[in-house]
């Protein structure tokens, strides 16, 4: 399969940390479409310009979209059913 112009959720680490106030690449999320669970770092990310589109690695459904508004990034929740930051020791 040809490789597409995408990266993964590691690249969103700074934006997510800024938005949630803690490390989020190891936070676990659930896809409302297919039910699979993945850590944020594993999401497939299209850095499309108007925004960053975070997709489920199992079914490609859009889970979140981060739009860089002038007032700062806004994270839209599309089909992310739940999000659970990693337990801290």
């Amino acid at each position, binding site marked *: 399969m040809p*490789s597409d112009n995408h990266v*993964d959720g*590691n690249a969103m*680490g*700074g934006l997510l*940390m800024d938005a949630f*106030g803690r490390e989020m*690449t190891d936070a676990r999320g659930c896809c409302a479409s297919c039910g699979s669970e993945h850590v944020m*770092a594993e999401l497939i990310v299209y*850095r499309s310009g108007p925004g960053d589109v975070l997709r489920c690695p199992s079914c490609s459904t859009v889970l979140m979209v981060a739009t860089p508004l002038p007032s700062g990034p806004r994270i839209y929740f599309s089909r992310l059913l739940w999000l659970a930051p990693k337990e801290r020791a």
Partner: protein
Amino acid sequence: MARAALRGRLTWQVADLVDRIDETAQVRSLVLDVPDWPGHRPGQHVDVRLTADDGYQAERSYSIATPADGTRVTITVERIDDGEVSPYLVDELGVGDKLELRGPIGGYFVWQPSDGGPLFLAAGGSGLVPLMAMVRARIGGGGHVPVRLLVSSRSPDEVIYGGELGMIDTDQAGVEVIQTFTRAQPLGWSGYRRRVDREMLDDVAWPASDNPRCYVCGPTGFVEAVATALVELGHEPGNIRTERFGPTGG
């Protein structure tokens, strides 16, 4: 105390460039001094922000190449020919200049010796940078986990940290380095001369039955091909951690 440390990671800090190291013709390491640096773990990265005098800003992420060392943070940058940021960092930024960054960032693509192993690392091109931080942590007195590092490069001239990799004494350091060259090979080379594939990984990686921790980093196509092959060889997906640098390798 923890909240102050977190605030530090979230805020943009000003670092001083204290040294530049030419790794290859296209790749340079930037040694930065970050006054309030809270420390970091191998595999983490920083976000770098550049501001032009008309206010235009550009941000990029760069992996940290070295284990934690007080206020010293070294990033390794590959110059992308039509890039907006990397030519500036590689060619323009000089010792004494300042660079804005925030971090460390990353909680998944990280490895510390206490995380255990055995450890299998697969690097495509500049994907070697975060994996080198792990290797340097291991060699610098970090436990006894056996490590195998597979490095895919186009040619010998393009191997980042090539000299250092060549000096690693496998028996002493517990780190074995295997290289493959996809376009041009060193004179007399009897090693791999092709892209990483399932057969190569079957030879080189720890067997799945050893339950190794695998980290794969580099261009998106490389990472996905290697991760898929490792799963086909029986490795648990949960044991494979990936970091994709995108089509151009970062």
